[in-house]
């Protein structure tokens, strides 16, 4: 697993652009003092102004986001408005500021034994796969990208990756069905050539874990959990693994699928109204 150390403390980052991609918003911000993140790492984000006083007099805590893309001095995040924190963040516009801590956690590790990477994403979970695809391509490795979305409106997010194959629950775009059905086709007969990288909703991650376990394909899963601090202080984001509870913020968010007995149990810690 790869990790870049974060500057100590919270810093301000000026929002430079807000782009809409269907159901999602991409927020770009300037981060001149921060280091380049490793793909799969995350940041704790809050709006520097008007953080609080939203629905239910919240948000209070920062929210954890995998970095979508990083260029020199610039970070991009993918946001879906599902709760009071994500609502405020998704409404940020150029000239406003973010309060940022990061990069945090362990990112993706390179494929083993020259295996070919398959990137499997669902919904807003496509974010860490974009920066990972960028890095793999920069190193001369092409990856197969399989993305699943609810419907056409959400599937606009697919444009953030290069050459994805898309599945939608309602069949409005691409394959009518689950992204894991696409993955199963890829794995058939090629299990010893492939390494899977996945991020998405718990049922999708569990299907990926089960499928890769059955085919004996190594898989790295980027998980999500309710998180207060992001740097190991609160012990709130633990997920059950074969080695007991681990803190997702310092021992994840990327975990080997083989360490989990279930990806469903590992991701119950975040209710949408808490996002």
């Amino acid at each position, binding site marked *: 697993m790869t*990790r870049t*150390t*974060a*500057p*100590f*403390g*919270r810093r301000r980052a000026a929002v430079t652009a807000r782009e809409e991609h269907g159901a999602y918003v991409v927020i770009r911000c300037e981060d001149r003092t921060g280091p380049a993140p490793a793909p799969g790492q995350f940041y704790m984000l*809050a709006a520097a102004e008007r953080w*609080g006083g939203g629905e*239910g*007099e*919240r*948000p*209070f*805590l*920062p929210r954890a986001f995998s970095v979508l893309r990083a260029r020199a001095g610039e970070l991009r995040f993918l946001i879906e408005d599902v709760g009071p924190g994500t609502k405020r963040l998704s409404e940020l516009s150029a000239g406003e500021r973010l*309060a940022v*801590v990061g990069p*945090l956690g362990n990112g993706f590790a390179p494929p083993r034994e020259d295996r070919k990477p398959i990137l499997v994403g669902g919904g807003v979970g496509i974010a860490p796969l974009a920066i990972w695809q960028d890095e793999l391509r920069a190193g001369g490795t092409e990856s197969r990208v399989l993305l699943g979305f609810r419907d056409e409106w959400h599937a606009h997010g697919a444009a953030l990756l290069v050459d994805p194959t898309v599945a939608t629950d309602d069949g409005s775009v691409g394959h009518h069905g689950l992204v894991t059905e696409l993955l199963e086709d890829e794995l058939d007969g090629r299990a010893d050539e492939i390494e899977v990288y996945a991020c998405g909703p718990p049922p999708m991650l569990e299907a990926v874990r089960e499928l890769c376990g059955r085919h004996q394909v190594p898989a790295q899963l980027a998980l999500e*959990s*309710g*998180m*207060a*601090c*992001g*740097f*190991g*202080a*609160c*012990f*709130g*984001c*633990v*997920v*059950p693994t074969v080695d*007991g*509870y681990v*803190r997702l*913020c*310092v021992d994840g968010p990327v975990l080997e699928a083989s360490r989990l007995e279930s990806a469903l149990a590992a991701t*119950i*810690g*975040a*209710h949408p*109204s*808490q996002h």
Partner: protein
Amino acid sequence: MSVDFCGIELAHPVINGSGTFDAIAAHRAFGDELLERFPFAAFVSKTVTLEPRQGNPPPRLWEVPGGLINSIGLPNKGLRGYLEHDLPWLAGLPVPLIVNVMGFSRDEVAELVDAFAERAEVSALELNVSCPNVETGLVMGADPDETARLVDRVRSLTDKPLIVKLTPNATDVPAVARAAERAGADAVSLINTLKGMALDPRTGAPWLGGVTGGVSGAAVRAVALAQVHAVAQAVDIPIIGMGGVQAGRDALDLMRAGAALVAVGTESFRDPAVGLRVASELMELLAKTAV
């Protein structure tokens, strides 16, 4: 402005609340910059119990207006694991180390206090008699006599300063503080978290794996101020005040209410380095204000 706290010299009056900052994990996240700009004048480590604990099943957190409820359940490596893995590292911190301990009986607490009594790396001990997350945690600190019996049991085992961390979930907190003082405590710290609960909006069942949890953050600041003020009327030993401190202004309030030191807790979750800001704001305020 250095501060003398029970004979320990501190660079300023701002420390952390136990269980709100893991210096070892923070070093993994932030590297040596953490040590170069360590945010607290003393480091209070997370509660150590005799045996290792996994902690409560998730979910463990729920955000509320101005704060959060946590139901963590005191996960830790146990005394042996702490002595072997954590203490050697924590001994290298640039500030004095205060170890927080909790036992499920007076004998257990005594065993923990005894184990740290001769450790030169440890400047003081804090007794957790107040964690509301574990079923039996309430018992000792909720009752003045129980508290007195506990302090009495462990007092003779160490010359190190003994701090009793008071629970706000007691009928008469100043009476508990007074009992601790009479039994030989060197200081009290307060407030721990307030007992709270959240329901899953979809099912109406308790959201937290531990059913109830502790409320902290700005939401509890007024409660902390009132309790520190009340305890300050009741005891002569120094008080570590905490609860919802977000800025130097809040720290100053607690000191005006009677606290000798102030601890930052939940706000570190929002900004890991906030202790530095609180301390510098507090110094500025103290320079122009008589407490």
